[in-house]
């Protein structure tokens, strides 16, 4: 047993600053495109349900509250969300966005469900189709109501 092989390395580290980040007291920085928690800008959502359709984890639920008023309620189930940002990519009007929060633990699953109640927005289609996904997380489809990727 040649124990000594490792000892210099160990002793060297005894006097080095530990690699530890003192977490709850000093936060780690997340990179700029970190995928945290999804949230909705209700003023631009046109209820195309593309996000609901593409979400792999059934985390988005849109129900119609009042058909006449065109009122809808969107629930993001953060207890199901896998933070994949597919909803952000799918949304034609950029109504979905991710923030960089990840310390959202809660004592009840109900606290993890976020709700927005809003009137369906009417948004003009964007002028030109952006080069598809040239920019990271760019909207996939140029058409607001019916993402053109859906049928080809």
């Amino acid at each position, binding site marked *: *047993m040649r124990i000594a092989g490792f*000892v210099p390395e160990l002793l060297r*580290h005894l006097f080095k600053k*530990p690699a*530890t980040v003192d977490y709850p007291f000093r936060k780690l920085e997340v990179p700029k495109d970190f995928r945290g928690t999804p949230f909705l800008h209700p003023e631009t959502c046109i209820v195309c349900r593309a996000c609901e359709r593409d979400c792999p984890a059934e985390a988005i639920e849109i129900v119609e509250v009042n058909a006449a008023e065109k009122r809808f309620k969107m629930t993001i189930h953060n207890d199901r969300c896998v933070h994949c940002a597919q909803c952000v990519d799918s949304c034609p009007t950029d109504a979905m966005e991710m923030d960089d929060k990840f310390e959202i633990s809660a004592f009840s699953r109900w606290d993890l469900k976020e709700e927005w109640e809003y009137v369906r927005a009417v948004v003009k289609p964007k002028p030109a189709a952006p080069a598809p996904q040239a920019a990271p997380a760019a909207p996939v489809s140029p058409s607001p109501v019916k993402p053109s990727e859906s049928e080809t």
Partner: protein
Amino acid sequence: MSALKTLLYVFVYPGLVFMFVYSTFCEWFDRKVYARLQNRMGPTHTGRWGLLQPVADFFKLMAKEDIVPEKADKTMFTLLPIFGLAVVATAMLLLPVWHFNPAAGGFNSFSGDIIVLLYLLSLPTIIFFLAAWSSTNVFSTVGGTRVLTMFFGYEVPLFLAVLSPALLAGSWRLAEIARFFQAKPVLLLVNLPGFIVAVICVQAKLERTPFDIPHAETEIVGGTFTEFSGKKLAFFRLMTDVEMVVSSGLLATVFLGGFPGGLVLGFLQFIVKTLFVIFLLSLLRAATSRIRVDQVVSFAWGYLAPLAVVQLFFVILLKGFVL
């Protein structure tokens, strides 16, 4: 006066209070050094620098539900932790600290106390074994068997290693051995091989890497203590800590020249020397990977015991011809 002194001795220093405080401190020290060697921080937020971490662990365990498994031997299961703690506490009292006066006898210093101390230090091993056995859990049982197997490996080299300074000093009394080396510190160098052997044996006795075989978590879960929870586990942990202090105290006495200098200086010496031994133990723990039970025995008999015997012969020759 002497009665008061005895009381202080038993309850304050190095008795119960000191024992508790210092052994928890030593566990913290060990954990911290181990963590720092691994480029981590180790306990930090329990009290200043995490100093109170072992204390918190202790009280937490004390307050936890205490499960006695159905199949276990209830009496043994309950009594063993307390008995174990009592044994190591007694051993602690034998360390020659404080009223360091070789001339004065007393209940804690007598000729042959080194043997008694070694004997008391062997008892925990038996207690671990019994504890493991009485919990009837398969993992514990393996742990227990491993404890015993290892015991036969390291115990003899340890005895032999401790024997040589005793021979050199020509006394079976801890206090006198220490005094002998204080008078002739050069002779401490003679015992260096013995010291190394003893440190390794103590590591094995304390069941720490590379000898943590009896509770190798990747192999047998919690090993010896798999079924112990709550108070009993707390006692066992405290017992291991105290055992660590006592063993390092023993090594410091016989190999590092004891703790002279009266109350304050002696106390400081005690702290520094035991911490040094504990540091060596931590380093050993960090630098090695676990070996196997059969390797322990063959290592102990193949290297440690011969080395200790050679040391012994050397000491005898030295004593016969030079001194």
